[in-house]
């Protein structure tokens, strides 16, 4: 392995892992919001609701 390969490996693993973790948190947030929307009691008398 050349020095460039070591540098690229260190940076790509670190930045890739941070990006993947960010995406994971984002998808868990969307899922939690969706679950709460499903569980919350239906609102009555709101505008635009039938």
């Amino acid at each position, binding site marked *: 392995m050349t*020095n460039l390969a070591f540098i690229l*490996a260190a940076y790509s693993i670190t930045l890739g892992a941070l990006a993947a973790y960010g995406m994971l948190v984002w998808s868990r*947030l969307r899922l939690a919001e969706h679950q709460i929307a499903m569980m919350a009691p239906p609102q009555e008398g709101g505008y635009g609701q039938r």
Partner: protein
Amino acid sequence: MIGRVLANGLGVIALLAVLAGLYLAFFYAPPDALMGDVQRIMYIHVPTAWVAFFAFFVVFVASLLYLGKRWPEADRLASASAEIGVLFTALTLIAGSIWGKPTWGTWWTWDARLTTTALLLVIYVGYLMLRSFVDESERRARLAALVGIVGFIDVPLIYVSVLWFRTLHQPPSLGTGGSKMHEAMLFTLLFNVGAYTLVYLFLLVKRVRLESLRAISEMLAVEKVRHD
């Protein structure tokens, strides 16, 4: 709504700071006189280590707050920060190992700094496992707070490990006694420390929101069971 806009704004600033930090690390900072270009790994290894220690400091403070005041928000903050801290500790060990191979000739050695850092990872992985094993929220928060406080003892040990023991690892890059680093190198390092701290803060805001939503979800589930 305003909170979400501010959090996303912080994310954009963090991303721009990381990109600027990459530019500084590869095109502004000079190569090291002894190690050459491979020393550029320092600009990602030291900031991730700093963020990991900072994240566990947040766990420590939030755990103390929880035990003192029993605020559920403090427990959620500790939980969120611990998960991010574990990620940054793992990345510190990986980047350090990659840097170690061309400079020390080995991926890993049971040196005092490396061993205490690996121990830190084990402690906080244990912290997260404990949180997932205990169902009752009050008991989970109390036990986790104790581990969060005791586990933090390892952080100052990591810092002094290179001063107290004969190790392969270099002395602290940043410390109270100033730095002997080239100005451009020091600026690049400090800039990257700031950039990754912003990334941590962005992830923390999102992760704390996730914890809050989970708490609401648990509350709604209990309400539903009572109602049925």
